[in-house]
């Protein structure tokens, strides 16, 4: 609908005049499209700082859990003595009580939690671990691009859809590592910042005239693309956007970023890959249990994501939300009421085409001392690349996994079976 407006008024008229915007040229030349499909969207959310997976997706059924965390453990649903306990999922795992917003998603079969998942790298550096997760190449620092950008470079899900400047959008001030690379990405703090900062339209028209000269070089091409993008966005008019009745996003920066992702999806600008991140997970000191620092972060996180899911409604059939964090935290609480850098963590895959009845994925390695990684951390049983590979393949239709995750050749049979198809 809005795409048609864009084609008629913008790109197509230029095409007929021989002035094709360069993103159209790039698309025509550079892509082998794997399959015709309805436009699919993947939203990746990064919890920077290493979220404490054991208090996010609580293994209350493991007796070693409560023992390792005298003050920090979340009470099991059955013996909660008045305090808020974990929200039971399957009798073994539960959600942190501040994540009540996720329970309806679980009940509707939209939520696939994964435990003991993460990077095989032994690093406990935030920087290195985030780098590895975003490039998709654990223990290789030289990788120039992020895995989402490599996906963009090799594939598009929708042959019938016109190329769009908003194919990949990051709601961050700078392009994040995960989207660095040769494919075009729009990074912005907020939609309203995607505009020309001048008092009148005349200045914008003059600037546009400076760039639309028919020159084929990269500067003019990018400028032409940009003025197209401005028109697309204006036609879509996301500022007029009202979330679905009853949906209210948290007023937090994270909640507002997710609201804007929903705006772009509903505006039909052809969003295929979206990214946002949220910090505050590095809880070395006083992280709290059912209430406190981590609880507050989780409340904002889960309410924001749940609002996005509810707001998107039927569109969730074509949408997958993938959450990740660079590593988990120590099994035992430390001396300052917090936890230190650990190893394996937890992820959530949220979407409308999950496989089978709701269940928590990933083999549980156990928390007994002899079961821990290096004697202190949750051991890893699922490589994060197995999750990313499955989502990229079954949701987005990516084919060339060896380019997405070079050096990773685990077969599809090792995937968790999160998604159908």
């Amino acid at each position: 609908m809005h795409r048609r407006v864009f084609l008629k008024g913008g790109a197509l008229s230029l095409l007929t005049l021989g002035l094709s915007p360069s993103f159209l040229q790039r698309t025509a030349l550079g892509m082998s499209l794997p399959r015709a499909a309805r436009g699919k969207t993947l939203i990746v959310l990064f919890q920077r700082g290493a979220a404490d997976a054991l208090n996010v997706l609580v293994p209350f059924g493991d007796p070693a859990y409560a023992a390792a965390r005298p003050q920090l453990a979340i009470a099991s649903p059955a013996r909660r003595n008045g305090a808020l306990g974990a929200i039971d999922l399957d009798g073994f795992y539960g959600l942190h009580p501040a994540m009540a917003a996720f329970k309806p998603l679980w009940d509707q079969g939209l939520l696939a939690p994964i435990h003991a998942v993460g990077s095989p790298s032994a690093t406990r550096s935030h920087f290195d671990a985030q780098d590895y997760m975003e490039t998709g190449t654990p223990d290789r620092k030289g990788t120039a691009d992020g895995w989402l950008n490599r996906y963009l470079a090799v594939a598009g899900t929708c042959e019938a859809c016109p190329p769009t400047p908003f194919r990949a959008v990051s709601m961050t001030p700078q392009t994040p590592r995960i989207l660095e690379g040769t494919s075009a990405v729009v990074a912005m703090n907020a939609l309203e910042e995607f505009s020309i900062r001048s008092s009148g339209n005349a200045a914008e028209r003059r600037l546009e005239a400076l760039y639309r000269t028919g020159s084929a070089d990269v500067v003019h091409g990018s400028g032409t693309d940009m003025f197209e993008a401005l028109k697309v966005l204006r036609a879509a008019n996301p500022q007029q956007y009202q979330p679905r009745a009853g949906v209210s996003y948290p007023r937090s920066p994270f909640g507002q970023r997710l609201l804007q992702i929903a705006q772009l999806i509903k505006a039909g600008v052809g969003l295929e890959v979206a990214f946002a991140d949220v910090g505050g997970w590095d809880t070395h000191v006083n992280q709290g249990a059912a209430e406190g620092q981590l609880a507050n972060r989780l409340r904002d996180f889960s309410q924001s994501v749940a609002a996005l899911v509810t707001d998107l409604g039927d569109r969730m059939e074509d949408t997958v939300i993938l959450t990740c964090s660079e590593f988990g935290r120590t099994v035992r609480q430390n001396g300052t009421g917090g936890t230190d850098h650990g190893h394996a963590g937890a992820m959530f895959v949220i979407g409308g085409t999950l496989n089978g009845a709701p269940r928590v994925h990933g083999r549980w390695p156990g928390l007994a001392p002899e079961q821990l990684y290096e004697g202190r951390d949750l051991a890893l049983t699922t490589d994060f690349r197995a999750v990313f590979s499955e989502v990229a393949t079954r949701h987005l239709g990516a084919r060339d996994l060896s380019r997405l995750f070079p050096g990773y050749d685990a077969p599809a049979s090792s995937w968790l079976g999160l998604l159908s198809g």
Partner: protein
Amino acid sequence: MPRLIPFVAPLLLLGVLGCRYASGPLAANPDRTIRAASATTREQTADEQVYHVLHRLAFGPRPGDVQRVRSIGVDAWMAEQLQPAPDSAQQRWRSRFPLLTATSTELLNAYPPTERQYPFLGELSAIRLTRAVRSPYQLEEVLVDFWHNHFNVFAGKDRARYFLVPYDARVIRPYAMGRFRDLLGAVAKSEAMLYYLDNWQSVADSGRPVLGPSRRGAAARGIATAMPRPTARRRGLNENYARELLELHTLGVDGGYTQEDVINVARALTGWTLAQGAQGGGFVFRPTVHDAGEKIILGRRFPAGRGQAEGDAVLDLLARHPKTATFIATKLLRRFVSDTPPPALVTRAATTFLETDGDIRETVRTIVTSPEFFARRAFHAKVKSPFELVVSAMRALDADPDGTSRTAQVVSRLGQPLFGHQAPNGYPETGEAWMNTGAILNRINFGLLVAGGRVPGVRLASWPRARELAALPREAQVDGVIHELLGGFVSPDTREVLRTGTNPLLQRLATDSLPAADAPRGLAQLVGLALGSPEFQRR
């Protein structure tokens, strides 16, 4: 344009005289012959050459620079830039910005990591920007920017930020125009790089022979068996620095080394660490964690037990390797000439690099005095990085950055936070990478913000040309802005848009996408358009 003519004739004359002089007594030297030939085969006009050198050996002209280069001549100005006398200038900068003399220990004490406040980082970025804008030694600033990017260190890796002030002041700057081996060695022993790429944590794998406890006379005492350190967790070999040393700092990714070479370089550099661990404290060699066994690196045998000297010998080997010469020459050409470096000039620059024992100044001289450098296709061929864009705009308008982090944030918002590139490869060096939908929007907005007086340290009113231009009639104003900010080198379309507000090409095509606009009103609008124009994005 008529005002240029008086300058052109003497310049041409100087150029001819210069050639005569150079081709006489030096003709016997083949290298000099090439250089002499270059002056006669420069494809760029005299005016283009002035503009060109001011955008390649400098971050664009400040008011008066064009006249100055014209009056002393392009070659004399380049020679001046290649031979800066920065000692007294260093003193001036240090007294203006006392931060430059701070050690990492002082910074760690003043701003404890637990407080998570790092005001010095914004200040350091602002100082780099200010020096790039104001320093008369522009080539030095260009090379400082180049080497900071080549030997990239990310401030956001935990404590790396504390090590960046000395990294800038004592590692990169002193050697930016010196010998590559000295620079490489200073980087290898810098707190910043040791920390960023983990070499400080790299120790001999268990079971490997290590040296005795004292550094002095370690070899004489013979080789001891590795003993687990009683403290902390012992990790063993960490290859990160060794790999990037080969791939990004010296030989290049196609440099012909193997994974075995990476491991053996890492082994040679075990024990190269920080005196006080994560607290910094400067470089120290710890023989007790150094893998003292024999190694083969790039086919050369490094005998057992040489201690720190072995790592130094590895750096010697790498710094003087032909692959390194080619790799560094290619990167310098990409910075100074074009995104697609002419192979013949790469070869000549690499030859200079090898023949002068990695003299950076002489390698740059070979590049910037070549016919390829002054070729027509090299003119305007580079897209400015965000840093180059901001610095060049500030220079053009004679701004004096206020030295606060607010100015540096302008560069960050354009996508190039200084010390903010996570991966060790540094920011991209080619135009494609800097140009996309969001980037061009931010650049256009930057021009508008500058013109609107909303960028700290830049005031249109204090631009000496502003008052003069404001008094002129419309056409002369347009010519003046084109001349001052774009060097006079604009397409007819751009001139027409600045003059009338509309683009004749688009009018002819009768597209409905661009309603006619009135001519821009006011000098500020003109300046905003000029800074946001495609031409200003290039250098």
